[in-house]
């Protein structure tokens, strides 16, 4: 059975591209426009991994991850943070978010599939 990845990003182009790349790599893909919508999607169906942007309307990436960590049903889902900010700046602002990985925007297709595969491997260990 294929694994499910939830992509949460307010940027239309990025969601479209990620959906295609991940589907081609054999993953089942769900999408959401912002953090609040992302939590709603997760309540409907628990994903195996979340790819989330940092700067989004209503609920930013860091606040979404914090909300996930507080929810026992979602707390152990690995999360990869996508950002055009320096990852060090993000961790400085938001502390330890328990991330499975960082993806610097703009990214190449191979970097996405590698990051997702690596996060799943780490989860299995």
């Amino acid at each position, binding site marked *: 059975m294929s694994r499910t990845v939830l992509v949460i990003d307010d940027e*239309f182009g990025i969601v479209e591209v990620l959906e295609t790349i991940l589907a081609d790599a054999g993953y089942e893909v769900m999408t959401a426009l912002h953090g609040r919508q992302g939590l709603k999607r997760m309540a409907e169906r628990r994903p195996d991994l979340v790819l989330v942007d940092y700067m989004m309307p209503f609920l930013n990436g860091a606040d979404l991850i914090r909300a996930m960590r507080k929810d026992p049903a979602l707390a152990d889902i690995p999360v990869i943070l996508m950002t055009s900010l320096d990852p060090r700046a993000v961790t400085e602002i938001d502390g330890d978010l328990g991330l499975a990985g960082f993806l610097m925007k703009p990214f190449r297709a191979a970097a996405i599939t590698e990051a997702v595969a690596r996060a799943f491997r780490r989860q299995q260990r």
Partner: protein
Amino acid sequence: MSSSSVELARLPTGIPGLDAVLCGGLFQGGVYIVRGEPGAGKTIFANQACFHHVGTGGRALYVTLLAESHSRMLQHMATLRFFDPAPIPAALYYISAFRILEEDGLKGVLDLLRQEIARHRASLVVVDGLLAVAESSASDREFRKFIHELQGYAVLEGCVALLTTNGNRSAYHPEYTMVDGMITLARAHVGARTERQLEVDKLRGSESLPGRHAFEITGAGITVYPRTETLFARPSPDDKGRGQRVTTGLPELDRMLGGGIPAATATLLLGPPGAGKTVVGLHYACCAAAAEPALFFTFYETPDRLRMKAQSLGFDLDRLIAEERLEVAWAPPAENLLDAIAQRMLSAVDRKGVRRLFIDGLGGFEETATHGARLPQFFGALINELRTRNVTTIFTGETRVMIGSEVVSPIAGLSIIAENIILLRLVELRSRLYRLLSVLKIRDSDFDVSLREFHIGRHGIAIDATGDSAEAILGERDGDRPRRRVRAETGPDRPKR
């Protein structure tokens, strides 16, 4: 009686030159449209205003309705010097509302703006791509409602909203009538040249500098150059008419002028190419002193070439420059902006406390100007401003006739702007050229009306002490009995006769 009105707080854009055009900046709680074709500079404009705002302690929200990715946009912005990653995302936050507009329409975007402005406590919000909202509106009424509600949020939160849009909708569309201000970024094509221009079409509650102002986009972002004639329509301080005299560096010319050039005036030095205008300028600039610094502003000769020329005439420019008594500025006329040159000149004047200015020459301004009709007003304003900053200016103008008595001023109206006029001319007699100098006009003062022959040699210019030689040359040329002996021009020594 105290005024019942409360003055609205201004928010400077921080875009160099723009706040002068806006007479102080935008108003807090106002909604402003920045319009222009793709590539006009709207995104840079909005980002530059955001970075300045957060750099001065404000908070900004950048909402894009375009399909363009923020990461790409930020990569482009990172090449500009105003970019600073530090305030992102804590003080400057980027979000996309593209899909929210597609899925939830105008109401969705308004909800997003209302919540995000409050959540981020934004005092500046950018909505990049207003055209997308207009195109998604079912009617003009719905679009008007969107603008109206956004205005309400801006007032409630005390934030400025900048809405960027492509400039292809008519100025009669509702957004333009409703907003507090409108700024157009455009490109004007003049021959093969393109000049970026900015115009404030509307600014509620304030005057603004009228007309189109040139701007450029460089590694520093946008810099606006307010039109000199509007910026200095009223010169900064009053012209006090100081009554002092400034030496030209040529004692005989000073005597002809009645003791030197009246201080804080403008002198037009007219003459054909090769007459010696630049050399007069070297004499003038090299009289610079610590209390009287000089600026030699040249369009044609690079500082190196000028230095070589000066050296061959016995002037030590390097020493004066090293002692910070003299600055040489070069502005090649090709692809330059008229008002940028004026600003550069005035900045150097302020920075160095310049008292002596030599501008070589008017032709550079003519070649730079994309609209020649502006020149008399432009130059009048610039000269006025220099005068009020206590600068004594000599500027050169090339006469249209190379050799002979006819004098045609290079730009109409200049003789009114210049209080003093000195004329250099070349006279052809037999097989050689003679140089003659005369003073045509000095403000409120007597002067020596005689024509003088002058020579350029190893020590610069030497002017005859009397008009005898000039009279002989002109008399002979005009058919009087020959009475002059030709001599080689070797130096400043008086010619023997």
